[in-house]
């Protein structure tokens, strides 16, 4: 009996090592985020995780993360979209004109803007998908066109301020339904619920895997990972609760992250997008309508860029011609730091989100430290390079 037990223990520790090795990339990025946060937490004397700063961190990075969700799909499909910064700026300007100058109702404006974004994505996706014009070229053109149109639309000036209802899109907070106020009990309850849901879902998936005899991660890693993730979520919720509660944009973002994770992992559409990026010809000969899916991927990217543009404008409470400049670079960097493959076919939503947070935390931390924008750019560039080198090295080692 004891003999058998030592055997399984030995097997367990052996798989533990090999599992960590083969999944180094996935854990590596999470560990990197934790280390970077710990580093800045120490060097900023705890400023990084102060409730106010944490809230800001979410507000500052929400639009990058939202666009990274769409960009990940585009990159997985084997393409790139350079126009997202300009498109988000253009949509922000469009919203400003409709709200401030024409006085249209907020809900209508948001709806029109999202449709407009999808249409812009469609216009670009059409050339990429059906005419096979390289996405780099099409979206580079889009980047210039919509930057110009933003200037034209706003006549080179800032337009604002926005009605209160519109600002809530970004700067609003979920009120405390329990009436305590401080700390915000709703935030804590939602945080605990979210943590519980994540643990429950992954436990269910693991149980199913075990039932079918699929080799998943060893139990030790599973338990540690889930405990850490749950703790982190609850802790963040608690921190936010002691300030003003959950920002509206955090809710929007979380719902979108969940939806896109589901789309990529569990739907036929997601599976087919990975197939297109993996081998487009084989996908086509397997009866996948590759053109239509690429087209839809770009439509989706356009709509998400529009949403990001609205949130960004709402946060600044004004639409400026400079809005969205170089956002595309942060978004693309987030996806690649998160492990998306340059040639398509591989990449995860979680990776892109973590990648965006790594960029965000570094921006935020370095700003608190008062590091100049010059050095910030250099450091961010090197981090991107290091992440991709790590990726390529890992892949070549696995052969």
């Amino acid at each position, binding site marked *: 009996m004891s003999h058998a037990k030592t055997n399984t223990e030995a097997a367990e520790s052996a798989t533990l090592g090999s599992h960590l090795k083969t999944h180094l990339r996935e854990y590596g990025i999470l560990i990197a985020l934790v280390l970077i946060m710990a580093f800045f937490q120490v060097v900023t004397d705890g400023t990084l995780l102060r409730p106010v700063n944490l809230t800001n961190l979410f507000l500052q990075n929400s639009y990058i993360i939202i666009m990274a969700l769409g960009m990940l799909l585009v990159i997985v499909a084997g393409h790139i979209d350079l126009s997202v910064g300009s498109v988000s700026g253009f949509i922000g300007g469009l919203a400003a004109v409709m709200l401030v100058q024409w006085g249209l109702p907020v809900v209508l404006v948001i709806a029109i803007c999202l449709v407009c974004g999808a249409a812009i994505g469609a216009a670009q996706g059409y050339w990429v998908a059906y005419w096979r014009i390289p996405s780099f070229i099409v979206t580079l053109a889009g980047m210039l066109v919509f930057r110009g149109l933003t200037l034209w639309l706003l006549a080179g000036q800032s337009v604002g301020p926005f009605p209160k209802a519109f600002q809530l899109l970004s700067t609003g907070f979920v009120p405390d339904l329990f009436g305590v106020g401080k700390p915000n009990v709703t935030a804590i309850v939602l945080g605990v619920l979210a943590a519980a849901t994540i643990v429950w879902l992954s436990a269910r998936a693991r149980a199913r895997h075990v039932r079918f005899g699929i*080799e998943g991660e060893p139990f030790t890693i599973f338990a540690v990972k889930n405990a850490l993730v749950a703790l982190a979520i609850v802790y963040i919720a608690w921190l936010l609760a002691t300030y003003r509660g959950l920002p509206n944009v955090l809710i929007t973002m979380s719902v979108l992250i969940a939806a896109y994770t589901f789309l990529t992992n569990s739907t036929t559409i997601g599976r087919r997008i990975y197939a297109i990026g993996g081998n487009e010809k084989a996908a*086509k000969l397997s009866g*996948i309508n590759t053109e239509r899916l690429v087209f839809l991927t770009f439509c989706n990217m356009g709509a998400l860029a529009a949403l990001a543009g609205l949130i960004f404008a709402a946060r600044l409470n004004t639409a400026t011609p400079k809005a969205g400049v170089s956002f595309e670079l942060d978004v693309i960097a987030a996806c690649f730091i998160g492990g998306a493959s340059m040639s398509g076919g591989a990449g995860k939503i979680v990776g892109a989100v973590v990648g965006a947070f790594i960029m965000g935390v570094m921006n935020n931390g370095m700003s608190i430290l008062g590091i100049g924008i010059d050095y910030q750019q250099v450091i961010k560039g090197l981090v991107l390079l290091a992440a991709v080198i790590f990726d390529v090295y890992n892949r070549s080692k696995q052969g």
Partner: protein
Amino acid sequence: MTALLEMRGITKTFPGVRALDNVNLTVSRGEIHAICGENGAGKSTLMKVLSGVYPHGSYEGEILYDGQPVAFRGISDSEAKGIIIIHQELALVPLLSIAENIFLGNEIATAGVIDWADSYVRATELLRKVGLVEAPGIPVGKLGVGKQQLVEIAKALSKEVKLLILDEPTASLQENDSQALLDLLLEFRAQGITSILISHKLNEIRRVADNVTVLRDGATVSTFACERGAIAEDRIIRDMVGRDMAHRYPDRDAEIGETLLEVEHWNVWHPEQVGRQMIRDVSLRVRAGEVVGIAGLMGSGRTEFAMSLFGRSYGREISGTARLRGKEIDVSTVQAAIASGLAYVTEDRKSLGLILEETILRNTTLAALERVSKRSVLDTASERQVAEDYRRALRIRTPSVFQKVMNLSGGNQQKVVLAKWLFTDPEVLILDEPTRGIDVGAKYEIYNIINELAAQRRGVIMISSEMPELLGMCDRIYVMCEGALMGELGKTEASQERIMSMIVQGRQEG
């Protein structure tokens, strides 16, 4: 006559395959020496050994050139000795000019600065030698294939060629271009240049070759003087195909039923080259439980026919009708073709059949995801069940269905492709070179799977360049040549000689 080149006992092995087995080749000074053999007989491998693509040390045996043993470590070594090979796939840069292509890698320059005047003068001189009347400044991409071939030869001449090797030089040429090329070879012979000509076209060999070496299954079968008569042609055919056929194919009691697929008057034009017809009025039928072969040489249009039928994946201006059980079916897109009950296992499984970086499981269900999902949401449990079932049924050797297919052997990869198409539950399967590049044991398993499909009352169209395979497996064989069907042979009347002579006949007519 002294030998310019002697290759003795050349043996070259790749993991799991012996591509060349003790091959001997002797080429005399100043002759045109033809090398014949079926696809996969080892002709190209032998030429790669000779030219140094496979460096000295990666093969056994010795090469004597000009009486001296040589050890080439790369193409540059063999080119320095005047051995120039012109591959079937031309190695020209389409956007560069003729002159630039001729001197590419070998530029007429001092200290890195190109002397354009001299380049053009010498290019013009070389073009005159090969009989090409074009300005040396125009881009190569503007020329037709025949003229591009002449540019390649001019490039070879610029390197002081002593032994010119042409790998199926006329395969993609029109008749008059081919004639011009052969005349050029004869002219070179008069000037003392030795040539090795690899060709399928027996009439061409008869016309220009002095001696012929026949390769089969990686070994030399015979070398003899080509007497420029029909007797030599018969002998070449016999030596190319003759091999022992006992028990390499599993037995099957064919129970052939009603007609499943009928294709009539199928015509396809080349997707880019205007006015080039790739498939000419092809009509064929497949019945339930029947394995039908399409024989032909590489480039005869078999793959183009299959791909144009399967969702118009090849060609333009496709016309013709396809019927299944007498009812006309829609094959205008891949989705429609699959829905109509067709499946196509591609010739090139790595670039067209599989997603190499994905798992066996994901490849297996790719063509029929709707069968493992409800309202677009995947049921991972049933997906896994499906993958496991096929793994067992087709005996895919792998530790787990979560293995990436890039880690599998060729035979197991092919089984994954078959699994993918079987899961769409097709009525007619088109298998394009289903056993290419896989070892003998796995081939036998694939044959068993094909027989099993026929036993399930499906129709199978099998395209193969290995004639014994078609003869061993098929109930009926169509012979295709230059995009047209030359005829149809039943199991009892089919033989390699008959198929070959039908092809040769087609070549001569075409």
